[in-house]
């Protein structure tokens, strides 16, 4: 891994830079930390907060399919720019709103932004990496760097937004966000979009869902892991969405919202660092995590002390992030790579589907009784998550994880090394290596063995050779085709 990172072409870094700047600026949404405070100012109560959450939870899935199709058929840079425009519109509408209805409309426009921007960055980074290096091996590295930039922007905007709200007004943070997002558009405009859509096509939503349900019914391990991912995701989402309501109930000062939100967001990063050190297959650690999350959730139902509330939420968010990462690993290990996309997407959908009714009920309970009563819903969800965690850790132990090759080519090499028969799908990955004589003798033997029995691959190889021959002839015809100069990528 280290060697391939070192060999990452400089052009890749340069090419992704404007995209990362755009993503970073887009993350500077100053109003996020004080949103609940502002909403309370303009007349929201807990029930209408729940309804608002449900409203945008409903918009995102509706728009996801059309935005995906647009991104594939048209341009992903422009989809991201449209997302920015929606975010600017939503910030502006939010800042201008003086009533619950107006703000709910702003939140639904924000849903448009989520739908447009969500998977787009990932797919753009993916295609750029493939386009520049010919393989997806560096994808994780680069999507990780992009996410790190984004998280840093979240933390920064959380702190800045809190301070800004304290010294000006909550409403002002909405307006201050607009020009920053405008700058993000410039970043996206300067990004040289990959032209390579066909190499990795987005899997259709409907087939994702169908595939997921088929897999869920067939394998119990998958079902457990899937439910765990969804329930854990739901609970985390609930803390991020409704956690600030505790601060509102305790009349916390505006300046506190910034650091509070920054800490909450940073638990996601901390969890990523901690997870490597924890052995979540050990019973003791699982038990400790479940106990801690249960205690913190129960604390939220009765304590009236601000520091305790904040600490409890942060600890709970951290534990849930750890469980979330672990759960998705369980899920990934339990399914073969060909359907992983579908299953992962299904888990995301399930989270939103659960979140919609949960937020409505949560808001209603908080309204009828108090936010502390709603805390029992968190505790209840923690019990469910704990039970699922225990079951899936047990079930997962019985199953050897499906070994995953990072790239299609590695998979082909692994199959060949295991002295299995190559399938056509794997053979086509190895053609250049074969022609360069870069295959090991064993793999070469498998390759040739397959060729003798497969007319399809024989034709394929013959045509590839014909193309190479014709390309070679181009040079003798004083070829007009020239290699593009190295630095012409960025305009």
């Amino acid at each position, binding site marked *: 891994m*280290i060697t*391939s990172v070192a*060999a990452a*072409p*400089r052009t890749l870094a340069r090419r992704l830079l404007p995209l990362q700047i755009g993503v970073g600026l887009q993350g500077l949404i100053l109003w996020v930390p004080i949103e609940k405070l502002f909403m309370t100012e303009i007349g929201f109560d807990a029930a209408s907060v729940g309804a608002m959450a449900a409203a*945008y939870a409903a918009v*995102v*899935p509706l728009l996801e399919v059309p935005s*995906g199709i647009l991104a594939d058929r048209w341009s992903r840079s422009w989809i991201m720019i449209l997302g920015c425009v929606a975010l600017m519109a939503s910030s502006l509408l939010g800042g201008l709103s003086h009533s619950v209805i107006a703000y709910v409309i702003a939140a639904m426009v924000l849903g448009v932004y*989520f739908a447009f921007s*969500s*998977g787009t960055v990932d797919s753009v980074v993916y295609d750029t990496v*493939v386009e520049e*290096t*010919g*393989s997806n091996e560096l994808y*994780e*590295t680069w999507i*990780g760097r992009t*996410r*790190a930039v984004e*998280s840093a922007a979240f933390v920064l905007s959380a702190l800045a937004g809190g301070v800004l709200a304290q010294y000006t007004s909550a409403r002002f943070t909405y307006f201050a966000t607009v020009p920053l997002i405008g700058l993000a558009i410039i970043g996206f405009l300067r990004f040289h979009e990959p032209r390579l859509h066909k*190499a*990795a*096509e*987005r899997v259709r939503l409907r087939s994702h869902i169908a595939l997921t349900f088929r897999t869920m019914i067939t394998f119990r391990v998958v079902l457990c892991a899937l439910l765990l991912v969804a329930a854990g995701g739901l609970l985390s989402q609930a803390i*991020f*969405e409704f956690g600030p309501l505790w601060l509102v109930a305790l009349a916390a000062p505006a300046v506190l919202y910034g650091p509070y939100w920054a800490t909450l967001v940073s638990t996601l990063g901390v969890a*990523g*660092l901690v997870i*490597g050190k924890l052995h979540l297959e050990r019973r003791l650690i699982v038990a400790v995590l479940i106990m801690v999350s249960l205690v913190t959730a129960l604390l939220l139902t009765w304590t009236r002390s601000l520091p305790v509330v904040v600490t409890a939420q942060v600890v709970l968010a951290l534990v849930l*992030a750890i469980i979330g990462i672990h759960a*998705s*690993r369980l899920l990934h290990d339990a399914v073969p790579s*060909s359907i992983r*996309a579908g299953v992962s*997407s299904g888990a*995301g*959908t399930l989270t939103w589907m659960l979140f919609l009714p949960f937020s409505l009920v949560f808001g209603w309970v908080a309204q009828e009784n108090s936010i502390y009563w709603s805390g029992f819903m968190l505790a209840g969800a923690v019990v469910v998550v704990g039970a699922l965690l225990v079951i899936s850790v047990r079930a997962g132990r019985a199953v050897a994880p499906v070994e995953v090759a990072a790239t299609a*080519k590695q998979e082909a090499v692994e199959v060949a090394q295991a002295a299995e028969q190559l*399938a056509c*799908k794997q053979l*086509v990955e190895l*053609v*250049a290596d074969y022609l360069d004589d870069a295959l090991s003798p064993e793999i070469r033997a498998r390759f040739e063995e397959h060729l003798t029995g497969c007319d399809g691959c024989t034709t*394929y190889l*013959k045509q*590839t050779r*014909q193309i*190479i021959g*014709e*390309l*070679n002839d*181009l*040079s003798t*015809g004083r070829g*007009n085709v020239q*290699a*593009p100069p*190295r630095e012409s990528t960025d305009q």
Partner: protein
Amino acid sequence: MKISIARMIANLAARGRAHANRFAWWSWWFPTAATVNADRFQSDSDPYPDHWKQFPRPWPAGQAVESEALKSAVTALPEQWRRVAVLRDVEGRSPAEVSAATGLTAAQQRDVLNRARELLREDVGRRLERGGLET
């Protein structure tokens, strides 16, 4: 160490984002990169998983690939792919030379080359078939 952190953050980001409140996106994007589109092969439920659904059709015999067609196919390639394909197959440079010119490793430039050739093969095949129908 730095790489393991990057990996962790990547892992986390991919899933953590789904938990991050409204900064979550709900549909996950983990495509598989393959040289030939995955839908050209049979799926796990078909009789021969991972084998061709339909064999690549042999090109009409005796019909040469027109150099104009090939040139425009080359021009349509993504830049990095075109660079590698031209250096290797048109100018006949060695893998080491291409590595030096592009900053790619020997393995990476081969992966790029494999994909570029596949795109050309597909593109030219499409043109040939269209031409074959007209005549």
